[in-house]
C-alpha cells in the first residue's frame, strides 16, 4: 500500500476563507449601505466563525506535524502557513480591538482588508502542502520566536491600517468621517500609536528569541543575514518613530507616514527577503520558502518610496485637527 496523498481540498481552510470573504462583504454593507445593528453583529459573528474555522485548520496542521515529527511544530513553517498565520493574528487582533477600543463595527471594512487580501494571496500564489521540516526548524524556539514576531507584525499591520486611514482622511476624504464620527484624525492617530506601543516590545522580544535560537542552531546570534538585517531595519525605524513621537511630539500626518514606512519594512522582513534572495542570489539561510516574484518586490519598493515621497509634499491643511 502506497503513501496516502495529502488531500488537495483543505477543508477547514477553504471554509474559513469563504467565511472571511462573506464577513468582509457584510462589514462593507454595514459601513456603506446599512447601519442596522443586526448587520454589524452578523458580520462580527461570521468573522468569529471564520476565525474558529481558521484555527481548526491550524490544529489539523499541527496534528499532521505531530504525527510526522512526534512533537509540537507551530504550523508556520512555509510561506503558505506563515502568511495564513499572519492573517489569523490580524483577525484576532481586530476581534480584541473591536469591543475594547474601537467600539464600532465600521472599522472592519478597513482593518480586515489586509488579512482578506492575504488569504486570497495564499490561495492563489502558494502551495498549501506541509513542508519537509529541516533539522534547524525542529526546535521549541520556533514557536516562541515566530509567535512573538507575528503578534508584533499583526499589531503593526493594524497600526498601519489606521495610519493609512489617517492619511486618507487628512487628504480630504471627509466621507470617512461621515461613515463614522470616530474616523477623526486624533482618534486614528492615537489608535495607531497605541498599537505600535504594544507591538514594539514584542518585536524586540521576538528578535531576541530569534538571536538565542540562531546561536543554538547555527552557532552565532547575529550573522547579518538579510532576514536578520531587515528585522534590525524594522526595529530601527520603529525606534526612530517612538523617539520622534515622544521627544519631538511628531504626531499626525508625519507620524502616520513614518508608520507606513515601518510597516513596509515589516513586509520586506516577512516576505520581501525571500524575493530579494531570489532576485539577487543572496544565499540567505532564512529563505525557506517561495515568494511572489519580482512583481511583488516592485510593489514593496513602491510602497516604501511612496510614503517617503509624500513626506516632502505639503502637509494637509487639517493636520492636527481632532
Amino acid at each position, binding site marked *: 500500500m502506497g503513501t496516502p496523498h495529502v488531500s488537495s481540498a483543505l477543508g477547514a481552510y477553504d471554509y474559513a476563507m469563504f467565511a472571511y470573504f462573506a464577513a468582509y462583504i457584510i462589514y462593507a454593507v454595514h459601513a456603506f449601505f446599512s447601519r442596522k445593528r443586526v448587520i454589524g453583529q452578523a458580520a462580527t459573528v461570521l468573522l468569529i466563525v471564520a476565525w474558529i474555522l481558521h484555527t481548526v485548520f491550524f490544529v489539523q496542521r499541527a496534528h499532521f506535524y505531530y504525527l510526522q*515529527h512526534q512533537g509540537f511544530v507551530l504550523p508556520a513553517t512555509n510561506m503558505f502557513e506563515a502568511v495564513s498565520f499572519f492573517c489569523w493574528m490580524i483577525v484576532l487582533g481586530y476581534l480584541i480591538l473591536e469591543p475594547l477600543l474601537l467600539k464600532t463595527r465600521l472599522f472592519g471594512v478597513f482593518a480586515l482588508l489586509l488579512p482578506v487580501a492575504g488569504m486570497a494571496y495564499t490561495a492563489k500564489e502558494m502551495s498549501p502542502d506541509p513542508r519537509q521540516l529541516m533539522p534547524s526548524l525542529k526546535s521549541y524556539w520556533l514557536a516562541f520566536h515566530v509567535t512573538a514576531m507575528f503578534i508584533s507584525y499583526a499589531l503593526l499591520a493594524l497600526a498601519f491600517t489606521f495610519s493609512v486611514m489617517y492619511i486618507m482622511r487628512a487628504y480630504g476624504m471627509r466621507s470617512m468621517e461621515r461613515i463614522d464620527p470616530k474616523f477623526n484624525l486624533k482618534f486614528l492617530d492615537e489608535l495607531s500609536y497605541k498599537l505600535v506601543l504594544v507591538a514594539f516590545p514584542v518585536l524586540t522580544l521576538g528578535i531576541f528569541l530569534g538571536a538565542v535560537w540562531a546561536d543554538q542552531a547555527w552557532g552565532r546570534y547575529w550573522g547579518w543575514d538579510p532576514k536578520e538585517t531587515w528585522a534590525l531595519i524594522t526595529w530601527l525605524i520603529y525606534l526612530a518613530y517612538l523617539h520622534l513621537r515622544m521627544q519631538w511630539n511628531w504626531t499626525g500626518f508625519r507620524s502616520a507616514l513614518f508608520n507606513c514606512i515601518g510597516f513596509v519594512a515589516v513586509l520586506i522582513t516577512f516576505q520581501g527577503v525571500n524575493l530579494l534572495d531570489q532576485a539577487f542570489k543572496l544565499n540567505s539561510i532564512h529563505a525557506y520558502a517561495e515568494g511572489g516574484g519580482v512583481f511583488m518586490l516592485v510593489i514593496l519598493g513602491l510602497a516604501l518610496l511612496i510614503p517617503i515621497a509624500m513626506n516632502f509634499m505639503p502637509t494637509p491643511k487639517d493636520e492636527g485637527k481632532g
Partner: protein
Amino acid sequence: MSATTQHEPRPTPGPLEFIWMWLNSLPIAITVMLVLAVLSALGTVIPQEHLAQPPMGMTMEQMYIERFGQLRYQIINALGLNRVYFTPYFFALMLWLSLSALVCNITRLRRTVNLWMRPPVQRGAGYFKADKRSRQSASVPRGAVEQVVGELKHARFRVHHMKEDGVDYVYADRGFIKRWGMVALHLSVLVLLFGGIYGKALGVEGMIRLADGEKQELVLNLAKNKYPLVKPLLEKLAPLTYQLDQGTFRIDYDKMIEVPGELADVPTELQDYYLYFVKDFVSTLTVEHNGKIKSQEVKVNHPLILDKLVLYQSGYQQLGYLSVEMNGKTKEYPVTPGDWFVLTADGPADPGSAMSGVEEAFSLEAVKAGDLYIGGKKTGYLGPLAIAHRGSMATGETLDSVLLSPDEGLVTRIDGLPATVRMSRKVDNYSDFSYKRDPGIPVLYLGWIVMILGITLALYIPFAQVWVRVEGASGQLLVAGTSSSDDAPLPRRLHGILGIQ
C-alpha cells in the same frame, strides 16, 4: 556702563563640549539610525562576501564581475558595499550611536537621580502660569494642603511637602520606575555593544571536519586574529586544548507520511526517493578538556558544551559510490551529486573529455543513506539511494530518470560493452562542526533582557507628577502625566479639595 541690563553672551563651547552636544543630539542620533538602516538595506541587495557562494570554479571576484560588470564591481569594491557591515564607516556609525547612547544615558541618569534625590518641590507662581494644564483657586479651604498630601499618599504617590515664607509647596510623583526603565533601555544598548566587543575580543570560533572514528586535537589560540589592542594581553594566555573523538556520524531520514501535491506527477517508482528527507544529522562526539570528559549526540539545535566551548553540528558530507559491473567485474567510483559525467572503462569522466561514440551522460541527485524513521519509529536502513538522470550526448536532453540502489540499477554500454550501474553499499560520512568560545554571550543576553524590561517599563508605566502651591487663600495646581485630564478621578478630587471651580 549701559543702563539696560545686558545678557552675558553665551560662552563659545570648547571642542569637547561641542562633541558632547553633538553626541547628545537626538536629530543626529535619529539621522545616524536611519543612515544605518539604509546601509543595512543596501547590504541586502548587493550580495555580501560573508554569505555569497560563488558558483563552482569561479572566484568571488569573478562572480561579482559577472553579475555587475567590471566598472560597477570596482565601484562596489572601492566603497566596500560587498562587505558593508564590516566597513570602517559602518563601524563608525555604530560607534557614534553607541557613544550617543552613552552620553544620553549619562545626561538621563543625572536628571533621573536629581529628580529622585532632589525633587523640584518649590515652583514659583510663574511656573504654574506658564503651563496651560495648571488650575487656580482663589479660596483654598483651611487644611486643604494636608488633605491633598493625604489624598496623594493614598493614591500611592511619593509626596514631598515643604513650607517656606508662608507658602506651602507640594510635589508628588508616581510611576518613577518608568524613568529608571528609560535609563535601563539606553544602558542596554551599551551592554549589548560591550557584550559583542568583549566576545569578539576574547572569543574564538572556527570550523573543524571529522571523519567517522577520527580523533583530533583542537587547540584554541586566544590571541589568533585579534585586534592589536588586545593581542599582547591574550598572547600571555596559554592555548586551550580540547581532545575531540568522533565516534560515528549518521544521517537519520524520515519519510513524509502523506504525498504532497507537488509530487503527484512524479512517477511512483521515483516518488519514494523524494519522500525521504533528513530528520537529523547526528554525531556521537566525545570531548575532553582538563580532565573533564563529555560525550553526547550532537545535532542541530543540540550543541555540546564543555568548559565554555560550544560545538555545533553545522554541516556534513555524505559521499556515495557508484558500483559499475562490466565483463563480470565490479568497480566502485565516488560520485559528486549534481555534476554530469560519462562512464568510461576507467570510471566516470567529464563529458567534455568523452571520446566520440559515447552516447549517454549521467547526473546523480544527492545520495540518501541512513537510519530510516517513519512516524517516529525506526523501521530499518535506507539506501544508499540516488536518482540518476540519463542525458543524450547528441541532443543534450534528459532521456529518463532511474532510481539507483544496491539492488536496482540501470543498464548502459561502456566502450560498446554492456554494463550495469548501481549504488554501492559504501558511503563515506564527514561531519563538520563549528566551534565557539564566546565569553560575551551572557553579557549580550543580559543586555537583551535589560532592553526588553526597559522598553516595557518605559512604554507601559505611566509617570504622573503633581505640583501644588498654596499662598494664603490662593492656590495653584499642576497635574502632569497620563492622568492629567481634568475629568480623571485624581485631578477631580484635588480640584474639590483645593476649591478649584
